[in-house]
């Protein structure tokens, strides 16, 4: 693979990561958000696959396939199942910050992400590290989604968005921290999603809703 093609594919995958994280912030329908999240998982896997082909590394290739299965297949399927169990409430109607303001906040977060990753890029300037600001922006946007959404399921999407960003930064800076580490982290994420899914189901069974702001008093 020629250098130009490599850089272009890498940049394209990063652009897709950015667009999908903005879309998660933009849309209200939870079904659409989950679909966008699956697309982001595919973009992340493509990013790792590009790195794998550049390095000619089989290990990275295996990790890419694993990421594709987990982030574009298993996690969205789990989220969809949790949503189907939730019944009629499919929209996050009132986020704590309205959508227009949160989009503008995301613009500020993007600039912040670029600012704080400049020293990192300056350490070893290459095509991969120059894309680190994108990963940092995804982390920050994921954190923003996590703290401003009311429904448990959309907070979960925020958490996963953050994790996607962290994985992207990890691969872009180190070209993979070894499959063992990546496997451990992925399993952790899967465990967290499973636990949170059970927690969400329990919450709805007990209180009839998963709006975390409504949980003001303790019950038995």
């Amino acid at each position, binding site marked *: 693979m020629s250098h130009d093609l490599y850089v272009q594919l890498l940049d394209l995958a*990063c652009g897709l990561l950015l667009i999908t994280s903005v879309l998660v912030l933009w849309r209200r329908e939870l079904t659409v958000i989950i679909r966008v999240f699956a697309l982001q998982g595919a973009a992340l896997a493509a990013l790792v696959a590009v790195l794998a082909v550049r390095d000619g590394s089989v290990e990275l290739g295996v990790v890419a396939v694993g990421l594709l299965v987990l982030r574009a297949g298993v996690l969205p399927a789990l989220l969809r199942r949790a949503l189907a169990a939730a019944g009629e409430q499919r929209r996050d109607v009132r986020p704590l910050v309205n959508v227009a303001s949160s*989009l503008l906040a*995301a613009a500020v977060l*993007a600039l912040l992400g670029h600012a704080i990753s400049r020293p990192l890029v300056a350490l070893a300037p290459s095509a991969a590290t*120059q894309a680190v600001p994108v990963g940092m922006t995804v982390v920050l946007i994921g954190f923003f989604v996590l703290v401003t959404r009311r429904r448990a399921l959309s907070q979960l999407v925020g958490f996963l968005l953050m994790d996607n960003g962290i994985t992207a930064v990890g691969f872009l800076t180190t070209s993979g921290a070894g499959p063992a580490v990546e496997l451990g982290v992925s399993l952790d994420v899967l465990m967290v999603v499973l636990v949170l899914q059970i927690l969400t189901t329990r919450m709805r069974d007990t209180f009839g809703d998963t709006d975390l702001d409504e949980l003001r008093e303790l019950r038995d």
Partner: protein
Amino acid sequence: MNALGVIGGILQCLLVIGGAPLLIGMMRQVRARLEGRAGAGIGQPWRDLRKLLRKESIAPHGTGEVFRVAPLLLVSTTAVVALVAPFVTTASAVSPVADLFAVVALLALGTVALALAGLDTGTAFGGMGASREMTIIALVEPTLLVSIFALSVRVGSTDLGAIVTSALHDPARVISPVSLLAAVALGVVIIAETGRLPVDNPSTHLELTMVHEAMTLEFAGRDLALVEWASAMRLTVFLGLLANLFVPWGIATSAAPLALLVGVAAFVAKVALLGGLLAVGEVFAAKLRLFRVPELLAGSFLLALLAVAASFFLAQPH
């Protein structure tokens, strides 16, 4: 000022002025066919314009010069943009005006003139339309500037001709994330700026939702014809900019007759294709509530900003 620029400029002016009503007619025809109606034919906007141009223009009692000048200003600013922007040729008749900031300012000047005319009538609808238009344009202008600026960063010049020329020399740039982000942002703001469906419905006069139509309610006869003509020309100009900034292939770089012919054909084909896509999209789209429009525009502003950030930070492929 060179020969290519002058010939191209005259061609572009004629194309935009003569072809804009045909574009509107084509888009209406596409919509009609998809909705199962026969449609009035592609030439209908021209027939409407001819009818209106024969009629006397009447200004409402109590309106001033602002109302009378607005249609002329709207048409002339759009015609200047049609003359200088790179549509058929990369060279420009008056190259200092083919600058990104000058073009956007000229287009904004026309919008502001129309909004002032809406206010000048003193009617409830005119004021309401003007207020809504100002709300929208306040978010559209920065996005328009920023999204084209994202493309100009790599070229190192805000001259539209230079941006198109550099994209022509480096076709791989078309699929870079910078172009994709900027194209999506520019597409959304063009839909908002020209008053097409998710933002404003051009085919109704429903008081609760209209934006552009509310401002033009008091115009009659020749003035109305000019306003309608200018809004068609604006749509053509914006679609042409979108097409040539991102897919510049076919544009003439020399004054040879064949190159000019190819340039004209490519421009007509690209604008017709984009117009057709827009019309097909409009059949399936519903109008957004007015309070949701800032959300849409804030989203496109964010995409444009990300495009600028990406053009500074991502690696350059060479």
